[in-house]
């Protein structure tokens, strides 16, 4: 499947597919199988793998990646291909929250302001995409570059006060699970309900799956595109607060650490890069799976050095198998 083919989707079969969301349950099952398999072989290798500590460690791995992946997934779902610039609102929001805290702002305004300002970055992307009609992949490549460069020039580093609620949030537990996990859980549920059961959500999927038909039925492509990129930046900004909670010293250069993993999570979850297909429950499982891999590797005695190799390999295999699966069921793009 190449990017070319998303121009060829004006046949009615696709509209039906996007509305019914076929292939989702297959995805979820496949991912669950992978995940359970990984847990099983890790447990066989070392029984201590099944423990509360391991669970917590994996959960902490999921916190930031999970939130970012949701923003990225929305972009992909809406046909925006990929947003390569999401590391910018992440770091921006993190740094801003530290600066506002040092200035004595109270919690709610601090959170709202940090997230909102970093969301504005998404509007810059939206401008180039909707007004100048440049492809989002290229736009976000450019704004990602430029944005990271600017961040490095503006912020040298931001240190989180260890006595602040931000730092506390990074280590506390709510209802027996790490507090920092809740934003991801809440976003997942909201995103899933939004996409599956709300009208704007279904329209978003239509915009991604079949823009021609969507436009014909009166949906404003521009409005949904702007909304999606704005939302992705806002979501990334929220992740930035969690990032500040986890990272006592924020360095602008560290943001790009998450770019590839978040794309891997979205692709692994079965979101089609052509838009219009994807399930947020599958995304949750895919993030969980990818977050378990590093921990499992340590249990197997492999250094963290092997992590990227396995993650990349998993992605390639998963994507290839997924392509075969969608081809077989006649849903080829």
């Amino acid at each position, binding site marked *: 499947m190449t990017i070319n083919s998303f121009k060829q989707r004006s046949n009615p079969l696709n509209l039906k597919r996007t509305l019914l969301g076929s292939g989702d349950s297959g995805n979820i099952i496949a991912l669950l199988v992978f995940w359970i398999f990984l847990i099983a072989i890790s447990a066989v290798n070392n029984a201590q793998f099944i423990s509360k500590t391991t669970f917590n460690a994996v959960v902490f791995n999921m916190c930031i990646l999970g939130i970012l992946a949701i923003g990225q997934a929305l972009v992909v779902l809406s046909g925006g291909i990929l947003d390569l610039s999401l590391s910018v609102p992440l770091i921006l929001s993190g740094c801003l929250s530290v600066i506002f805290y040092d200035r004595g702002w109270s919690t709610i305004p601090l959170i709202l302001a940090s997230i909102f300002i970093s969301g504005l970055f998404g509007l810059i992307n939206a401008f180039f995409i909707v007004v100048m009609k440049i*492809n989002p*992949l*290229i736009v976000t490549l450019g704004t990602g570059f430029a944005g990271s460069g600017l961040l490095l020039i503006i912020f040298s580093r931001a240190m989180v006060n260890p006595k602040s609620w931000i730092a506390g949030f990074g280590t506390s537990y709510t209802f027996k699970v790490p507090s920092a996990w809740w934003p991801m859980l809440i976003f997942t549920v909201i995103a899933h309900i939004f996409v599956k059961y709300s009208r704007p959500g279904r329209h978003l999927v239509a915009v991604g799956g079949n823009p021609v038909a969507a436009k014909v039925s009166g949906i404003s492509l521009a409005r949904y595109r702007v909304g999606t990129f704005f939302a992705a930046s806002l979501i990334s900004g929220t992740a930035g607060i969690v990032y500040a909670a986890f990272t006592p010293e924020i360095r602008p250069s560290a943001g790009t650490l998450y770019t590839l993993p978040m794309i891997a999570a979205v692709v692994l979850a079965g979101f089609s890069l052509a838009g219009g297909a994807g399930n947020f429950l599958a995304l949750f499982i895919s993030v969980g799976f990818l977050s378990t891999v590093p921990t499992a590797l340590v249990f197997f005695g492999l250094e963290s*050095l092997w992590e990227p190799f396995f993650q990349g390999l998993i992605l390639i295999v998963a994507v290839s198998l997924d*392509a*075969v699966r969608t081809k077989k069921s006649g849903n*080829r793009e």
Partner: protein
Amino acid sequence: MASTQKNRKKFTEGPSITIVICIVLISLVSLQGVGLSTFSTDNLYLILNYLALPLLIGMFASFSLLSGVVDLSIGSMVGLSAATFAVLSTYKLNLWLCAIIAVLVCLSFGALNAVAIVGFKANPIAVTLGMLVALRGLARIVNMFDNSEVLSSNDGTVVFIDGLNTFTESSISFLPWLFVIALVFTMILQLVISKSRYGRHIKAVGGDLTAAIRAGLPASRIKFTSLLFSAGGAGIAGVLYVGKMGSSSSSLGTGMEFTVYAALMIGGYSILRGGVGNPIGGFLGLLVIAYFSNYIDNMGFDTRFTDVFLGALLLAIVYLDIRRGGDAYE
């Protein structure tokens, strides 16, 4: 049909004009800030030396762009090839053998990409992204196995090969030999792409896959070999980098795919559709970036400004391309 051909011609011309304007502008700014020495032998050598290997990599990668597949793993392949070559050479094997093995390693991973993309029909961005991540990790692992007495880390194997280093650094006046080789290759490629049947076939496959298949072209084979080309080019460049840098650093190649593809896009290629772009355009795109970067270096400014410039230029070029009739994102 005729109008699309004219359109195609129009927007492959477009970038050239913009690039020339950029070059003139940068020259003026540099003359003012850095002075006449912008055009001196040693400065030109600096620019061309830096641009030589990315040009080679870009030209090999352009095969896959033309055929409609973007290979994002080329940067990691360069790093892996360098690591393989460097580590093997610490075992005192014949250097040519080490180089060939390094290139073969890249070719095998290129074949893996091709199997996934052409065979399984998986999304090229996803596959090559996965390969990018995997090979970057693999390069670090390979770097651990060196056999040298010098205390190396898994972040780089120090391997100073005198002969190779002299070759990669040598030049006639302001023209580094590597650059000359890369430029000659670019011009040969230009002729192949624009004049030969193979060139027409690649562009057809990239431009309109269904039509190409209907016309009986061996589309799968063309795509497969184009991915092998981009991998092979990265492999060769990796070996040459070891000569240049005297080591295989794990930072080698990181981010290189973005610079190379941005340069190629500035020069008229597209990572979204195949069939457009010509090698000379790609060269000019790289030249602009290297030239601007050189100005920043000479003035001692923060090198992040180059990234900002790159981003802005890329957006400008693509926008102009759209204005000239390219594919707007609707």
